[in-house]
């Protein structure tokens, strides 16, 4: 049983141009055997949080507890080497002057009570089997491929059976195909070993695929935490909605039973915070927006012009212009749709999410066309 508790963590860097608040009041708990992911854009403080857990950074405030041990806080700071962790670095940090075997055996050899030679051999072999690198023991580490190095880093992190596994963007240096495969393996491995894991990534697909729970970070803070499906279905802010999945944002004024947008009223469920007159943002997931070439006479149906219908294999990526607002949608790949033709979009009310408008907007149209990886 291992539980990681992080409370009110804070870390500031003093750089040349003033202080950088890298982590600000971050708290979360990772229950036993859970896969927990810190997700966020570049520079939001994910790595810093992970490094605080590993003891590679010294937080200014907050406590980090592994079960009943205080790793950091309350005036104590356990150095990295005394923490019962395994860590995979973004660069893998495979020691180039050692063989595969030596790399994996290192954590055993430097431990307080090094196991016997035979035992070391057995444990290393076990770890290598775990990641599918058996038989490569004597290979010099630099001769491994990218994917193999990644597995080696994982074997090294697991070999002394740590309580906690820390992973910093371990898949980001791999090519797209390999990344797909490795994330399946990683998920399998974690579920099988039941090791408590903290994972850092900026790839929402990875986060959703791998995790039991995900925390989305923005500017050093956790802005929302929850199960992947909850984050996706009910993001608390436009930032989260945008970062976890694709969305079109429709700003508008709240009216009775819906939001005024697209030249009419979009019917949707409203939370208590959204009283008539308030500013709201409608979050529309493209795959929930239906496109037809003829009207079906349903609620939330709007006429528009098809601007883009790009074939992406398993679907058509569409942009529909509804009274000057560009709405993203997906259509079946066999649908007979032509550019500039008149279409009707349906926004099913149960999939229309209205959130308070905090003024945040995605950066320009940058995300409109980069829907390739997930």
């Amino acid at each position: 049983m291992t539980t990681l508790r992080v409370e009110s963590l804070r870390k500031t860097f003093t750089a040349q141009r003033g202080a950088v608040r890298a982590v600000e009041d971050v708290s979360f708990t990772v229950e036993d055997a859970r896969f927990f992911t810190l997700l966020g854009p570049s520079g939001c403080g994910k790595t810093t949080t992970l490094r605080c857990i590993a003891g590679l950074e010294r937080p200014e405030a907050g406590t980090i507890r592994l079960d009943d041990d205080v790793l950091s806080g309350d005036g104590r700071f356990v150095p990295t080497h005394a923490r019962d962790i395994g860590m995979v670095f973004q660069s893998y940090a495979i020691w180039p002057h050692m063989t595969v075997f030596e790399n994996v055996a290192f954590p055993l050899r430097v431990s307080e009570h090094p196991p016997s030679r035979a035992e070391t051999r057995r444990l290393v072999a076990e770890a290598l089997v775990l990641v599918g690198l058996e038989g490569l023991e004597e290979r010099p580490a630099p001769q491994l491929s990218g994917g193999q190095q990644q597995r080696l880093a994982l074997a090294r992190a697991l070999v002394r059976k740590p309580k906690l596994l820390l992973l910093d963007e371990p898949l980001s240096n791999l090519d797209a195909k390999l990344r797909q495969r490795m994330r399946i393996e990683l998920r399998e491995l974690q579920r099988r070993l039941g090791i408590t894991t903290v994972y850092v990534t900026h790839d929402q697909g990875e986060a959703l695929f791998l995790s039991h729970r995900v925390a989305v970070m923005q500017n050093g803070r956790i802005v929302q935490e929850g199960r992947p499906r909850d984050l996706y279905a009910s993001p608390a802010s436009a930032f989260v909605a945008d970062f976890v999945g694709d969305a079109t944002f429709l700003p508008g004024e709240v009216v009775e039973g819906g939001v005024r947008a697209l030249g009419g009223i979009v019917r949707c469920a409203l939370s208590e915070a959204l009283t008539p007159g308030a500013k709201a943002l409608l979050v529309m997931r493209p795959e929930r927006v239906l496109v037809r070439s003829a009207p079906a006479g349903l609620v939330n149906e709007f006429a528009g012009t098809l601007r883009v219908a790009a074939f992406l294999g398993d679907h058509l990526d569409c942009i529909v212009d509804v009274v000057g607002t560009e709405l993203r949608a997906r259509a079946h790949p066999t649908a007979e749709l032509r550019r500039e033709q008149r279409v009707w979009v349906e926004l099913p009310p149960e999939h229309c999410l209205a959130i308070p408008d905090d003024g945040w907007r995605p950066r320009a149209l940058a995300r409109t066309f980069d829907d390739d990886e997930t």
Partner: protein
Amino acid sequence: MAATTVGRRAGMRIPAWRAEIVVAGGAALFLAYLTVVPLAMLLLGAVSASGSALDFQFTTRYLERVVTDQASLELLANSLIYAGGAAALAFALGTAAAWAVERTNIPARSLWYGLALVPLIVPGIVHTVAWLFLLSPEIGWINAPLKTFFGFSLSVYSLPGMIWIEGLHTAPLAFVLMSAAFRAMDPSLEEAAAASRADAWKTFRRVTLPLLLPSVASVLLILFVRALEGFEVPAIIGVPGRIFVYTSRIYLSLKLYPPSFGLAAAYGLVLLAISIVGLVLHRRATRHAERYATVTGKGYRPRRLQLGRFRYVALGALGLYAFLAVVLPFLVLIYASLVRVYSVPSLESLRELTLSNYSFILEDELTRTAVFNSLILGLASATVVVAVTAVIAWITVRTRLPGRGALDFLAFVPITIPGIVLGISLIWVYFTIPIRIYGTLWILLVAYVTRYLPYGIRGTTSALVQIHRELEEAAGAAGARWWATFRYILIPLLRPALVGVWIYVFIISLRELGAGVLLYSSQSVVLAVRIFDLRDSGNYTSIAALSVFLIIVLVTLVSVLQRIGGRTIREA
């Protein structure tokens, strides 16, 4: 791991950052002692009215003299002409060779890199003495036939003579630096110009030249400062020819009667100032160069100019240079080492070849002492420099201690201190403070370590920067304490670079003359100084023998050490 062990182990350990502060503080004190103290003493010495820097009775007598005296103006003019001329000559020769080797299809390209190393290994004093044999007015190999057939001779004891000898010797440095500059330049930049319809000349003028300009400036400045600091040519050629520059003047201030330590310090201060200006300008030039970012670490394959028939003309020119800079000096030294009295070679002199010069130096007690001392000093200074700079580099690269930049700076300061100025500064230091090491090997060790710190810090820092910090952090995350991380991760990864720095410092310490010439005694004589001394007693043929011996030892050492170093690199 049980809960209690985590807590106990954590409680017992000194926090790592406190150990860091102790080590960094120690390093700062050490560096300050090696660099700040001598410079402060030099300053005090230049204005001290009595023989001790700490009497605090000041005079501006010496400073006035070095700034206003008529002879001092001549000194300044001589120094600038000599250093500027030598730099220009070395640059012209080196750049032409670098361009030919890097950018044309000249044959035997790798051979030239190997040959360029030789003058860098041969001590300046050996090269100078060899050219004295070649250009000596009456009996030099070159002058004797000129005199016989054309009735005139080239005067070696002149500014042009000095410039020629120094320029010829430092040209390989220009070659090495400029070929690196040529190689670092992305040829696609030139190709892009060509694709924009610029012809060859326009491409050169608008693209190649501006891109190379920062390198040109920085190489010229390095060569200038080096010539300015050099002691060998000014002492051996300049002094007999009554052409004085700062380095020889400092030496003479102490060696002529009555010696004036104050005057020497004042001259040292001026030389230091010029050298600092030169290096500050150099730094600006290179900082500028980084903006161009022509180096991307890719191995470029530049288009080579097809020389056609001129291929062999270029080859001949390079060959001639190699002959003058390497082969001819070596031949004349061998010849001189085998005769009783140096003269123009003739049937007679060839009949009387003898090994007596070699037996003289082998039996000479002082020469033996010099060999022994040089080796001891080489080993010790290389080891100390590598150890100290590795620690400093680690602090500046890996820690976030405030003031770590100052450490790096302190270790770099000695690059501005000419060897002979360091010598006079150390005399002042150890005449003033009650550590009685003047005249022992210790003061030479202090001088050598100070002088080579910049090379060490440059080598170790760039090596450490290339080692991803996550490699160390991964060891910590694997449960290794700092010692295990240091021992099993850092040292093995750094080893090739450390070995390289060690070899470099060892070799240059065997050639050192300037820093030692004011500090030695008969107990602490070293090789280059021994040659210098033999010259004072007019024993030129023995010098030749010792020089040949020294060249052979150095070239052998370098090739052996490079092989060892190369193997370590391959192992890693």
